[in-house]
């Protein structure tokens, strides 16, 4: 299912962990969607001196995180800003179609971490990343995609309030 490059990065992920004195942190996704990624940056003189990640997610999500950190390490912020999700997927020799959403996390997390660094530098108040604690039953959208009934899996319109298939009330959605 996965390319050998994906499997290599999944099996031996590079740059796993946290950076204690990180000066840029970016977190995207949430566990409800099945993927969550945190990128830690140590930026020195506008260059990514060190980068580490922590990821909750499937094999593709872990490989994307690993590849992304490899691509970003040592780059100037200007260069790093140009890394797109597509670049990461290409470097991994492609991802299965239904996994492309995983690769959408990688570059987003990096950009968020860079922004976090810049905000800190500019002296802006940086809110602590909000951690979604495991809530009781609710439903999530897969990164802005379709909405499914959490009880019977049928695609539903949130506005309808009730699943046409199983009759359950649809609880309010979690922001993806």
């Amino acid at each position, binding site marked *: 299912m996965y390319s050998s490059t994906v499997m290599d990065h999944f099996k031996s992920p590079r740059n796993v962990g946290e950076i204690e004195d990180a000066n840029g942190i970016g977190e995207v996704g949430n566990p409800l969607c099945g*993927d*969550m990624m945190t990128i830690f940056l140590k930026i020195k003189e506008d260059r990514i001196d060190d980068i580490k990640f922590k990821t909750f997610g*499937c094999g593709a999500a872990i490989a994307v995180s690993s590849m992304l950190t490899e691509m970003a390490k040592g780059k100037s912020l200007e260069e790093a800003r140009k890394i797109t999700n597509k670049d990461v997927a290409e470097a991994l020799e492609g991802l299965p179609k239904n996994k492309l959403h*995983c690769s959408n996390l990688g570059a987003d997390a990096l950009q968020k971490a860079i922004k976090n660094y810049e905000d800190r530098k500019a002296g802006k108040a940086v809110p602590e990343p909000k951690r979604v604690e495991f*809530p009781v039953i609710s439903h999530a959208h897969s990164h802005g995609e379709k909405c499914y009934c959490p009880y019977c899996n049928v695609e539903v319109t949130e506005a309808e309030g009730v699943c046409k298939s199983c009759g359950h009330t649809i609880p309010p959605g979690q922001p993806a």
Partner: protein
Amino acid sequence: MTPIYLDYLSANPLLPEVQEAMIEAIRKNLGNPSSQHQLGDQAAEALEKARGQVACLLNCANPKEIVFTSGGTEAINQALKGVAMANQGKGNHLVTSNIEHNAVLRTLRRLRMLDFKVSSVSVDPYGRVDPAEVAKAITPQTVLVTIMHSNNEIGTIQPIEEIARITREKKVPFHSDAVTSVGVVPVDVQKLDVDLLSFSANQFYGPAGVGGLYVKQATSLWPLLDGGVQENNKRAGTENLIGIIGMGAAAELAVQQMEARMKRLLVLKSRLIQGLKDSVEEIFINGHPELSLPNLVSVSIKYIEGEGIVLMLDEEKIYVSTRSACAAGALQASHVLLAIGRDFADSQGTLVLTFGQETTEADIDRFLAVLKNVVQALREMSPLYKKPN
């Protein structure tokens, strides 16, 4: 390294006796059971022998009530669509549970497009349906109740007999999807008193692509497939005789060996559950502790995602299934796990471990040892996991 296969639910190996029966049938070059000549008679005889063997497994007194199909999915589609269509004049409402297999859920979704209404009863945290809820859901418009015998993700066995008493009293046909039960645990259609019951050969060491539907006499049913007069006019198309012969052989073995198999499986199951509790912290064992399949353990492992576990175990030649959204391809959490109260995140780290004939205690032990390391490795990568101090 010998592979360890803990994915019997996905595919069962064919037992040697089943292989023999099928190979013999292939070599004999049996004809078409519908033919008028001697070769046809010979084929028809083989077909009816298999029907008898399957009827015996279900304790069905009249083998004519068994209709062979291309597997569980077809049997379920046949039961639901067939009964709904045949009863259009009577009503347009069906009752089900919210933990059914997709073969049921998606068939019902299709029926909704034809203006059928569906009520879905919920389950308790063990995944059990309350028969009283089923009774409440039945309306004068109800043409069918369909509740699975056992669940394919968590193994919980439903109170089918009690539900059947209710449907009998209310004169509503009752179908049970017994695909994961038949051939594994006793399923007695007379005792259960259901009107329709679906099963699949591959769950009891028969070939994939063969199954059947028990249809109690006098049940109104439109055929899903129209054409010839095979299967008592209930399923057109030349029979998959080789496969059906394999299913017959597997059914006969299941009858003979079920008790011994179950005893063995229960030993493996409790070793596996105890081992999981001992070796991995922060897990949930899903399903009912007693009223459940002897060959299935569902475990939710917090803070990690199932596909990663499957891939890492695969490296060690250990084969398991996960119910994570990512692996399912649909990017949706399992509706069964949500129905029993697991949240989206915990559902992600769920493995369905199914075992059988060739599984040994040593397999279970090695699986547990490897799993412990895999879970640790993935948890260390997970931003959700906080190491215990």
